[in-house]
C-alpha cells in the first residue's frame, strides 16, 4: 500500500514539474511534507543540501531519499520509477509524432525557430553555473557583487580548463575530475 502511495506521489511530481531543476521543488515539498508527512522540514533541508552536492535531477534524488527512509531500497526503486514514468509516456508520444511529421513544412519551420532558442536557454543556464563557480558568497550575482565575493582560484581553474578543452580537445570528464582533485589540494591549503 505504501509502495502504491509513493509511486503515485512521485508520478505526480514527475508529471507536473515543468521547466526542470528547481521547478520540481514546491511539488516535492507539497507531496512529501504536507500531504504524506514522510519528511519533516529539517530532513527536507538535508535533502536539498545533498541534492546540491550530488549529481542527478533533484526529483530523482528526492525519490531515492524519501523511498529509502520510508521503505528501504524497494521504496527507493518504486519512487524513482514513479517519478520517471510520466516522462517515458509523454516523451515517447512526442518522439513518435516528431519522426512521423518532421518533414511537414510547418514542423520544419517550427523546428528552425526552436533551435536558436534552445542555444540561448543553454547559454542562460551557463551564466548561472558560471556565477556559482566564480562567486564564493551565496547570492552574489553578475549584477551585484563585491571584490571579496570573487573566487580567484576558481577563475584560474576555469581559464586553464577552457584552454585545454578548446586547444587540445580534452575529455570533459577528465577536466571535471581534474579540477575536483586540484580543488581538494588547493582549497585545503588555503
Amino acid at each position, binding site marked *: 500500500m505504501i509502495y502504491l502511495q509513493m509511486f503515485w506521489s512521485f508520478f505526480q511530481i514527475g508529471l507536473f514539474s515543468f521547466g526542470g531543476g528547481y521547478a520540481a521543488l514546491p511539488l516535492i515539498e507539497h507531496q512529501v511534507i504536507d500531504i504524506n508527512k514522510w519528511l519533516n522540514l529539517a530532513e527536507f533541508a538535508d535533502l536539498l543540501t*545533498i541534492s546540491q552536492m550530488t549529481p542527478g535531477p533533484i526529483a530523482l534524488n528526492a525519490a531515492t*531519499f524519501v523511498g529509502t527512509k520510508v521503505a528501504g531500497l524497494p521504496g*527507493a526503486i518504486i519512487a*524513482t520509477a514513479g517519478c520517471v514514468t510520466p516522462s517515458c509516456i509523454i516523451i515517447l508520444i512526442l518522439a513518435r509524432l516528431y519522426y512521423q511529421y518532421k518533414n511537414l513544412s510547418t514542423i520544419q519551420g517550427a523546428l528552425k525557430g526552436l533551435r536558436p532558442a534552445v*542555444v540561448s536557454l543553454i547559454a542562460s543556464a551557463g551564466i548561472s553555473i558560471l556565477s556559482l563557480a566564480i562567486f564564493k558568497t551565496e547570492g552574489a550575482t553578475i549584477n551585484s557583487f563585491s571584490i571579496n565575493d570573487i573566487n580567484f*582560484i576558481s577563475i584560474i*581553474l576555469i581559464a586553464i580548463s577552457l584552454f585545454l*578543452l578548446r586547444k587540445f580537445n580534452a575529455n570533459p570528464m577528465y577536466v571535471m575530475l581534474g579540477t575536483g582533485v586540484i580543488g581538494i589540494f588547493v582549497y585545503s591549503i588555503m
Partner: protein
Amino acid sequence: MKKDFKFYKTLFLSTFSLSAFTVGGGYVIVPLMRKRFVEELKWIDEDEMLNLIAISQSAPGPIAVNASIIVGYRLAGVLGFLVSILGTILPPLIIITVISKFYDVFKTNKIVSTLLLGMRAGIAAVIIDVIINMVGKIVKSKNKVSIAIMIISFIAAVIFNINAALIIIICGIFGSSYYIFKLHKN
C-alpha cells in the same frame, strides 16, 4: 552503426557517466550530452540534437531524464530508450542510497566539499566550451532570423526570467508562421 552488444554498452556507459558526473541539474547535462553524442560519438547530427533537446524541454519531468529517453529512442527504439534511461537513473539511485546512510559523515567531510568546489570550475569551463561552439555555428550560418531569435530569447530568459517552456513554444509558433509566410510569398 551496428546495434550489437558493444553499441548498447557504449550507450549505457555514456548515459551512466553523464548522469554520474553532472552536478547541477538538467541544464548541465544537456550540453554535455550534446558533446558526447554529436561531437564524440557522431551518432546524431547537430540540428537533430537541438530538436530533440527542444522536445525534452517542452515536456514535464526532469530534463536530463527526458533528453536521455528521446536520445535512446532515436538511436535504437524501445530497447535503446530502456538502456539509456537505466543509465540515467542508476547513478542518483546508488549515490543517494549510500549518502543517506552516511549523511552526517558526508556533510562535514572536508575532502568531499573541496572536491565538489573544485569540480564546479571544471563544469563551468565545459559548458562555456559547448556554448561557444553552438553560438558560433548559428552566427556562422549568417541566417539573420536565427541570430535574431537567439538574441531575443537570450534576453527573455536572462533579463526577464521568462519560463523556458514558454520561450520554446513561442519560438516554435513564430518559426512555423514565418515559414508559411515565406512559402506564400514565393
